[in-house]
């Protein structure tokens, strides 16, 4: 999976491409760990290229949401395909993470 992170003034834009699974979840967590420190970050993740996520991926989105909430920031996941969205829906993650 590829991850592209762009910081602008007060927004962080992330684009994910490929499958987020047991083989790369640890790396993804490392890649985004600096974002778990920042105060009041506004993070937008473009999921249009994300083909797949397992619970390994969900775990990291949950950690990110918890840290963003604790630091007064915001997190939005955008353009998720319907199959990935179903994984968020059946696990109740759609209720705790903003998806547009």
């Amino acid at each position, binding site marked *: 999976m590829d991850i592209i992170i762009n910081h602008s003034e007060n927004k962080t834009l992330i684009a994910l491409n490929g499958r987020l699974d047991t083989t790369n979840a640890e790396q993804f967590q490392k890649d985004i760990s600096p974002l778990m420190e920042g105060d009041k970050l506004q993070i937008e993740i473009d999921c249009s290229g994300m083909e797949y996520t397992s619970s390994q991926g969900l775990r990291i989105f949950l950690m990110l949401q918890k840290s963003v909430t604790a630091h007064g920031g915001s997190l939005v996941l955008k353009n998720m395909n319907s199959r990935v969205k179903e*994984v968020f829906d059946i696990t109740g993650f759609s209720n705790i993470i903003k998806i547009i």
Partner: protein
Amino acid sequence: MYKKFNPITGKCGEIVEEIMQSPEVLPLNDTTRFKIRLCAEEAIENIISYAYGRNDGFIEVNSCISDDNFVLSLKDGGMPFNPLGRKDPDINKPLEEREVGGLGIFICKRMMDDVRYTYKDGCNILTMSIRN
């Protein structure tokens, strides 16, 4: 397909990929293959992480098509454990109380049409099926 994997530590991705490339799975539609990949990963990762404690062990993979259903059976020789005996996670908990533990098998139950567990001859056998 039938294949026995041993050792299994760190091999989840490889085992899932073998299942996805098997002649039973390749012709199935995209949504069914997505669900098979997801549930295979969840179930195999659970076996690798918990079945053998600190030791390594084997997973036997059996898959077939039966009456338009794809059937995947995973067998391990680890500690007896019925994953279907666990209580489902409460998916309506607020953010601060949510945890990811226990989600894997819950995803399998929701995504597959049928999930069964048996313990036989010293082995855990998890069988999942889905209609294409």
